[in-house]
């Protein structure tokens, strides 16, 4: 049984964006307890230790979920609805990371319970800074709603 406690879940189906994001976080030393999944189903399985993640320690004490909106299969909004509808996960902070600046999207995501909405900058330097800021805030500055398990990461 894998007893790894994560504090950041990146839900991103685009490989390049995922790579850039992980690079940005790693540069700021914020990627040590990061889990990257490629779609909504995986994200929910991860949180509830189901499917491919069965047998893993519960990840309900995760500190932040970075959620891409546009994904194949189960999209970001559907994942958001499920997280916010389940009493076990509804208090986990979710920051929507997307390329869309559409007002309707912003409005809808907050309506569904998103805790933040960030438009990914095209210019890489801006993007790096943006991701670093988010990681820093949610992983270090912000007090998470759940106490972390005493199990220390290996």
């Amino acid at each position, binding site marked *: 049984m894998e007893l790894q406690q994560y504090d950041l879940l990146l839900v991103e189906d*685009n490989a390049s*964006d995922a790579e850039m994001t992980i690079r940005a976080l790693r540069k700021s030393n914020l990627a040590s307890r990061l889990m990257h999944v490629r779609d909504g189903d995986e994200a929910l399985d991860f949180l509830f230790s189901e499917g491919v993640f069965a047998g893993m320690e519960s990840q309900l004490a995760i500190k932040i979920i970075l959620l891409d909106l546009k994904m194949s299969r189960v999209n970001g909004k559907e994942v958001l609805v499920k997280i916010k509808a389940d009493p076990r996960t509804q208090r986990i902070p979710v920051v929507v990371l997307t*390329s869309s600046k559409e007002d309707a999207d912003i409005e809808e995501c907050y309506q569904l319970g998103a805790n933040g909405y960030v438009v990914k900058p*095209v210019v*890489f330097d801006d993007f790096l800074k943006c991701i670093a800021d988010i990681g820093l805030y949610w992983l270090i500055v912000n007090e998470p709603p759940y106490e972390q398990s005493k199990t220390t990461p290996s």
Partner: protein
Amino acid sequence: MQAEALIIANNELVFQNAEKEKRAAELIIANKELAFQNEEKEKRAAELIIANKELAFQNEEKGKRAAELTIANRELAFQNDEKGKRAAELMVANKELAFQNEEKGKRAAELTIANKELAFQNDEKGKRAAELTIANKELAFQNEEKEKRASELTIANKELAFQNEEKGKRAAELTIANEELAFQNDEKGKRAAELTIANKELAFQNEEKEKRASELTIANDELAFQNEEKGKRAAELTIANKELAFQNVEKEKRASELTIANRELKKAEDGIRQLNEELEQKVIQRTAQFETVNKELESFSYSVAHDLRTPLRAVHGYARILMEDHSAHLSGEAHRVMSNIMVYAIKMGKLIDDLLTFSRLGRKELVKVTIPMHDMVLSLCQEVKSEHPNRNIEITVHPLQSVQGDSITIKQVWLNLVSNAVKYSKLKKTTRIEIGCGVLGDEVDYYVKDNGAGFDMRYASKLFGVFQRLHSDETFEGTGVGLAIVHRIISKHGGRVWAEGKVNEGAIFNFSLPRNTPA
């Protein structure tokens, strides 16, 4: 003795003859009396004949009048026939007359009875005359007896007897004459009575007829007056009827005209309704089409935003990673190429951002408020100036009229115009920008004037098109979307944009906004 006895008997006879002579003288007197009475009766009969003739004449006259009245009655009857209602009234009057006639019939019957009474009285007088005749006959018989006795007595008496006989003959003749006279008187009396009755009857009938005639005359006058009145009213009614008939005809004409007009209107209405229904149907269809197109556009914009930016970010990001992680393996030329890759990636990112802004403008609803135009422009100019701290920029802002509009997009307009003015005058030592407005009718014209590169008026029409640029990217960087955004925002506000310029002498960009924008 016997002589004495005879003398005594003669004396007796003489005495008796003397008595008879006395009676004969009395009878002569009586006869004379009767003759006088007969004469008187003849005179009265003559007078009665004259009176009868007079009456007959009057009767004839009355008959004529009666005939005239009959004619008049027929005339009246004809008139009565003509006048239906009046005829009924006359019928009633006729019944009344019939009743009166009946009454007269009764009176006539009573008169007949009275006549019979008179006839009976005449009869009685005849009987008395017969009794007198009988008495005369008695006397004659007695005289005959006495003559017999006288003849028996003396021949001398024969003379007396003869004389008496003569007297008796005369008396008989007188008696016969008297009887004749009595009979004639009787007849005349009867006739006179009959005539009297007939005259009375005629007089009564005449009186009645005159009464009736006068009543009929009054009734006729009344009828004539009423007829005249009715005639007048009928004439008035006829005129009124003609007037009404004329008005009815006019009204019918108008009614038929109105009916036709109504039918036309109804047809037109039906047509319009049908057209409206068709139009509504079309509008619904078009709206559905537009909604579909809009959704497609939204999803297109979304795709542009997400799908174009993501690879662009990757291009830029990987170039960056290459330069960061593998710098040692790259030549100077490789560095320059990598730099250009990043520059154009950035430029493309900017293009995508501007395009998205432009496309969003088309869909976004304007929120209209009164914009404090002067304050907005002043603070905006300060921001723009602060972005170019190394340049000498002078901006003059004349008082600006406030209007209704969408604050965010109007600010975008000013930002684009002022930024352009600054950008295209960067080659001048001092950038001079003048901002002002003028009220013209229902709209306010705003302008931004610069002393920059200006433009060739031949290409003025291309200024506000998307991706249309009049300068090279090397000289003046830009995406060619800024003025297109200005155009779109002002158009959405119901205003106009236009520009004037001269190469190297600057340009004036104008836009107008309606003063009283409907809510």
